[in-house]
């Protein structure tokens, strides 16, 4: 669609109607993963490794099987052999084979007539372990002499001489970084570390599964993407995908963590082994923290050159990221995000994906970007302080714009970083004066966004209302945004559109609601599908008027003659066309399937004001501003919600959240009391500015807004703390004890 059309006035887009699923969600009616039951249903429980690394010598479940009410027990022996590659990693993570690779790794699962019996049975299973050496810390794991997590885990990309725990290696760049550093007036470098953080969705993983011996099965799962669940379950169990019907429940948060399988294949296997009875498994919070998610921990070296008037000349990053026992840290995404906000003549990126005896890292909101932002944006802030330059001005001088080559290669189309920086500079928060022990930090962040495989359908009801069917679960209001785009396309009231999230049998393949793609991709596909039905309606009206279909146009819910030459006919409403469709050729429906193109890159800039208590090291966030380019905000309230939620997850990662391991390699804080996500009393209001530089490749200008907001808080808060205390913290989280030590010694030791 041409750019000039993007400036047009919208009737529904940009308004803030009630979300269609609001009533169900404020009354307790909405059904989440654990909220269903079936006749004859069994309850599952999972036995998990108490060791960080161990050989499983034997599993004896005779006693457990004899308990009254135990109907099935599965171990790795109940899963197919001969699987390799990524599917083998998925299976290994679902249920351990010869080795348990982390504290919490699933060993066996039981189905019984009650949860209590299932848990009792778990305790009766006898496992003989041979405990093996383990490694937890990323910098320890990369040492050549480190305990080996998995033999032969390195792929073809790993250079010779690396630690056996290096799973993959990547290197890329542009320009000559050495000549770039030569041209700089100041070259600064630093090492930064971030701990693993969990996605922290409040709803634990839950599913109910039923699988018959003929290979047909059904599942009810809380997931961001039920086609992924179907594909992964089918591949690890050796099932035919189309025979597995997966229905997504309402989902109680995901943030990337619910894009893969954990308990789902166990529930299917238990169901099959118990003669096809439905089996429900619900994780405890401790299981969620020990065995799902989290994101990677990172150790990062950054070197940046700058001229004295603030132009970045060269940048080098080496990121080492630990993504658990099977690899898969988001190190390449982190590298792509590292310098993406800046137009620099030379950058070079080196990345290592490293194994450790920790749970398999899952995607977490803008995977890799927050760590990269912490390292790069912190160092840029140090440079601004050294050269006495305004941090927003420096970013404005170097900001990427349309036509610039990104730091990872491809040229940017229309983007809105400069507009976003200007919005923060103009915002009153940037000029409020600060008191003693208070400081202000600025940081930018980036996410590339994602289109992905998408299928939707649209059908006209007989009264002229419209059913939209999409495959992207609604985590944060996407039913509302899709209904708004549908209403806009037809020119019918928002309330005349009903958006359904369909099970896997009802549509073609859909990627999950991930990568900030639901509103962008399902929205674009619905626009296409709706326009098919509009063409069909115009055709039917043309027949009625006995004129050429091209002589009928669609305008605001009505078919009209395209001009005076088309004839003198009164417009016909969608209501009338729909009421007559059984007489004019039958149902009117449209569908669209595509790998959605035309994603729009997303940039955000945050400003954090903090106060640091010099006696306790406690950081109080005084005020917080998020400005981000949304492209166009379809439902501004939910766009703000994404900005605020992302920012607060970043604040938690920066200040409180971390995985704490004992010397035994076991997780010590597998509860919300100890893995402390931000609570309401920790926070101020999160102020927002929605910048709108429409994405020219989307019918409504959408970029995708979900992810970027989690990246800037990590450096923005570290920068604010540095301004408040004159001490630079280079490792997260900035817990009170660490801050206090840093204030006393001048450094956090990183």
């Amino acid at each position, binding site marked *: 669609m041409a750019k000039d059309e993007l400036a047009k006035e919208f009737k529904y887009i940009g308004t803030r109607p009630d979300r269609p699923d609001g009533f169900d969600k404020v009354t307790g009616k909405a059904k989440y993963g654990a909220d269903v039951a079936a006749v004859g249903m069994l309850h599952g429980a999972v036995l998990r490794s108490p060791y960080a690394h161990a050989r499983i010598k034997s599993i004896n479940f005779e006693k457990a099987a004899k308990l009254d009410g135990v109907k099935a027990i599965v171990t790795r022996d109940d899963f197919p052999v001969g699987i390799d590659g990524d599917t083998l990693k998925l299976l290994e993570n679902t249920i351990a084979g010869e080795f348990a690779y982390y504290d919490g790794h699933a060993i066996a699962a039981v189905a019984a007539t009650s949860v209590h019996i299932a848990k009792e049975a778990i305790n009766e299973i006898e496992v003989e372990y041979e405990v093996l050496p383990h490694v937890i810390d990323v910098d320890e794991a990369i040492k050549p002499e480190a305990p080996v997590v998995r033999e032969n885990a390195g792929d073809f990309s790993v250079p010779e001489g690396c630690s056996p725990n290096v799973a993959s290696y990547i290197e890329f760049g542009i320009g000559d970084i050495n000549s770039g550093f030569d041209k700089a007036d100041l070259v600064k470098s630093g090492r930064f570390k971030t701990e693993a953080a969990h996605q922290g969705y*409040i709803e634990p993983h839950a599913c109910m599964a039923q699988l018959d011996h003929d290979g047909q099965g059904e599942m009810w799962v809380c997931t961001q993407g039920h086609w992924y669940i179907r594909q992964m379950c089918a591949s690890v169990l050796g099932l035919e995908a189309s025979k597995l019907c997966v229905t997504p429940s309402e989902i109680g948060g995901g943030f990337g963590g619910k894009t893969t399988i954990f308990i789902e294949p166990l529930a299917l296997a238990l169901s099959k082994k118990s003669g096809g009875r439905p089996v429900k498994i619900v994780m405890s919070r401790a299981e969620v923290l020990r065995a799902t998610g989290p994101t990677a921990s990172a150790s990062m070296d950054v070197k940046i050159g700058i001229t004295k008037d603030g132009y970045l000349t060269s940048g080098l990053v080496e990121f080492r990221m630990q993504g658990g026992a099977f690899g898969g840290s988001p190190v390449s995404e982190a590298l792509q995000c590292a310098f993406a906000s800046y137009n620099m003549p030379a950058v070079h990126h080196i990345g290592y994906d490293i194994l450790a005896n920790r749970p398999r890292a899952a995607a977490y909101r803008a995977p890799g970007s927050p760590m990269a932002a912490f390292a790069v944006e912190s160092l840029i802030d140090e440079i601004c302080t050294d050269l006495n330059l305004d941090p927003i001005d420096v970013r404005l001088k170097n900001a990427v714009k349309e036509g610039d080559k990104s730091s990872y290669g491809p040229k940017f189309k229309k983007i809105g970083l400069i507009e976003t920086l200007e919005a923060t500079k103009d915002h009153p928060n940037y000029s409020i004066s600060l008191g003693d022990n208070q400081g202000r930090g600025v940081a930018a962040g980036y996410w590339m966004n994602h289109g992905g495989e998408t299928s939707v359908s649209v059908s006209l009801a007989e009264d002229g209302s419209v059913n939209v069917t999409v495959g992207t679960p609604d985590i944060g209001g996407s039913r509302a945004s899709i209904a708004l785009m549908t209403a806009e396309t037809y020119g019918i009231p928002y309330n005349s559109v009903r958006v359904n999230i369909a099970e896997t049998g009802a549509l073609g393949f859909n990627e999950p609601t991930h990568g900030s793609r639901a509103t962008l991709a399902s929205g674009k596909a619905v626009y296409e599908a709706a326009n098919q039905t509009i063409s069909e309606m115009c055709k039917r009206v043309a027949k009625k008027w006995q004129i050429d279909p091209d002589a009928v146009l669609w305008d605001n819910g009505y078919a009209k003659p395209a001009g005076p030459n088309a004839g003198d006919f009164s417009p016909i409403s969608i209501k009338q066309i729909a009421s007559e469709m059984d007489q004019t050729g039958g149902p009117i429906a449209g569908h669209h399937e595509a790998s959605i193109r035309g994603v729009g890159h997303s940039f955000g800039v945050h400003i954090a004001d903090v106060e640091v208590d010099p006696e306790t090291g406690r950081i109080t966030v005084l005020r917080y501003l998020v400005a981000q380019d949304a492209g166009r905000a379809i439902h501004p309230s939910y766009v703000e919600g994404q900005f605020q939620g992302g920012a607060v997850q970043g604040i938690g990662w920066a200040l409180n959240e971390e995985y704490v391991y004992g010397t035994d390699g076991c997780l010590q804080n597998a509860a919300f009391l100890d893995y402390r996500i931000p609570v309401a009393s920790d926070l101020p209001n999160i102020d927002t500015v929605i910048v709108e530089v429409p994405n020219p490749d989307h019918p409504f200008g959408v970029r995708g807004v979900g992810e970027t907001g989690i990246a800037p808080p990590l450096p923005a808060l570290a920068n604010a703390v540095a301004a408040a205390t004159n001490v630079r913290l280079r490792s997260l989280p900035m817990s009170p004890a660490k801050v206090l030590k840093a204030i006393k010694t001048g450094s956090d030791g990183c």
Partner: protein
Amino acid sequence: MTKIHVKTNINGDKVEFLADPRETLLDCLRDHIGLTGSKEGCGTGDCGACSCIFDGDLVSSCLVLGVEAEGKSIETIEGMAGEKELHPLQKKFIEMAALQCGFCTPGILIAAKALLDRNNDPTESEVRYWLAGNLCRCTGYDKIIKAVMETARDIRETA
């Protein structure tokens, strides 16, 4: 384990159920009575998703045993709306987009109602501290706090 016969009152209705003495009130509400609006996010009283009113007190129902409900009066999210319309907090939460995934919403609404029933003129700090036991991972709390403050103002104005 032998089950115990429990007679209680839930959202104004007399209810009887058989509880395994190990079961929490939350288990009983969800599994025996079919009231799945109260959620389990942690099972350890940290997240507040299972918040209920127990004889007038705000509790985490995952920390109350089901058998303790004997002779008590319990209010859950399912009883919050009136017959004709939603509670003002429910309406305001929808209107102000104070929910995203909606999983913590029942617990937060119950807790917020408990606050406004006691104090219809809370400061923002009071609201933030009152709700500090209710975790929300999606919203950053901003719109939740504003929705509670606005509802309190509406209640004061109509009172």
